[in-house]
């Protein structure tokens, strides 16, 4: 069943067009990978889906479950089931990770979350991710290392259970331990066949362990190639040169 349908999407940042007419669809239960060299517009795509006010769509549409996302406030998008793990998660002093997730759940679903059940679930999820229990009581992202921040994003992903998750470079710059946690979290999320996943990355290391349905190569703000998981291996071997030529050749 179609979950996301992006048509003719043009996006600018500070009046500079980054995405030039993007087309993209994803169905429930699928895992999509968006690859591409630095500066291709990968993060722009994630941010426009989530509604970052720094990015402006100048044309096109984003249908999510048949509903237009453009112009929808960020928190409503989250309520509709969208989630993005941030490349640089923001530090929020004074708010513990645990309290925050609970507040977000209550806000989104407009109902109270029972403390006891919630605690049990967060504990279970932390165990699952091989994360220390003390994470829950620390201030959200404050003083977290790069790896810890990414782990905390994955924890939120599993607790908030969105129907479309966008992981923006969640794997970059992580140590082995953090990569393991992140992979585990993604696998856990993939078990839910009602949800779809978009993994944005510029390196393929993390993908070797994961099931991937479709790969999209983004170059200079356009989809340069699409294919199945075998495309990942090709990029691993040859890089993006072939696709870059193609885009530049087309002008």
């Amino acid at each position, binding site marked *: 069943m179609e979950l996301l349908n992006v048509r003719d999407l043009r996006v600018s940042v500070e009046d500079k067009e980054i995405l030039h007419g993007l087309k993209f669809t994803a169905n429930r239960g699928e895992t999509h990978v968006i690859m591409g060299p630095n500066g291709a517009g990968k993060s722009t795509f994630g941010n426009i889906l989530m509604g970052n006010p720094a990015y402006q769509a100048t044309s096109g549409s984003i249908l999510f479950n048949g509903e237009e996302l453009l112009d929808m406030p960020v928190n409503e998008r989250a309520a509709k089931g969208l989630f993005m793990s941030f490349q640089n998660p923001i530090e929020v002093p004074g708010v513990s990770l645990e309290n925050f997730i609970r507040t977000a759940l209550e*806000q989104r679903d407009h109902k109270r979350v029972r403390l006891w059940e919630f605690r049990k679930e967060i504990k279970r999820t932390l165990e699952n991710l091989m994360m220390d229990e003390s994470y829950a009581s620390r201030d959200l992202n404050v003083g977290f290392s790069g790896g810890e921040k990414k782990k905390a994003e994955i924890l939120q992903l599993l607790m908030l259970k969105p129907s479309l998750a966008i992981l923006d470079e969640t794997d970059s710059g992580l140590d082995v331990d953090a990569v393991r946690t992140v992979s585990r979290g993604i696998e856990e999320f993939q078990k839910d066949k009602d949800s779809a996943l978009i993994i944005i990355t510029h390196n393929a290391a993390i993908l070797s362990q994961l099931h991937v349905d479709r790969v999209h190569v983004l170059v200079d703000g356009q989809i340069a190639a699409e294919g199945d998981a075998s495309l990942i291996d090709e990029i691993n071997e040859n890089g993006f040169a072939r696709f870059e030529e193609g885009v530049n050749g087309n002008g």
Partner: protein
Amino acid sequence: METIVNKPLANTFGWLNVNGTKVNAPDKMQQQEYELEEGAERTIIADFAAGSRISAKLGRNATLRLVQIRRGKEEDTAAAAGNLSEGGLKGADGTAVNDVRVKCSEGARFEWYRIVLGGEATYDNCTVELEGDRSSFEAQIGYRLGGEQVLDVNCEAIHTGKKTDSVINASGVLSEKASKLMRGTIDLRKGCKGAVGNELEDVLLMDRTVRNRSIPVILCSEEDVVGNHGATIGRLDEDMIFYLASRGMETEAIYEMMAKAKLDSVIRRIPDEEVRRGLLEE
């Protein structure tokens, strides 16, 4: 009684009107003096008084923690009914004037926890002289003000001893027509080699009618020292709002959560469990 309080160590531009504040102070000030012996440790939860003068001398390696909470209404009512202890008289116009002066000997430590949640007008002076080597001072000031409430603070850390350390941390939320003036001075005087002073202010403004004034001063006449100051004043950072909204929170709820967080971050440091829990639940 009209008097000028909160005169800072260094004046600045006259037109800013911050070189001291004229107040109608209570006629009677409740006086308290403490003298801590070598190695003594004490936590004082001060009762409210419309006018209070607290002074302390800390002996070697002594530690004094002073917790002062201004809740507002009930205190003023109690004061009006004459239910407060000696000197705890209601100040004119719900005004409370508080003056704390502490001297620290070698290795001594003074911690000041100041929470202001109510009261029409609160004037706080806290001057700490770090005379002994390795003595230290930490101020944790938290406030949440609305209506037409006024908070006017002058907090001074005077470093004369070597390797002395001070932290002045003020964090709070202003809404409606609340007005806050925070003067914080780190005075690194000649001879205080190895001293470190840090001052941090974080103010969240909730309404367009608030007024925030911040005068973070560092005075320095010693070379081998470090002094830092940082302030963030205004609305929430756009990136933070986007991040929190992306997890499903409405803007208003984000502000409410962050307002609480700002105050809680100070309250959580209060060394008295009972007071701390009481405030967190309020």
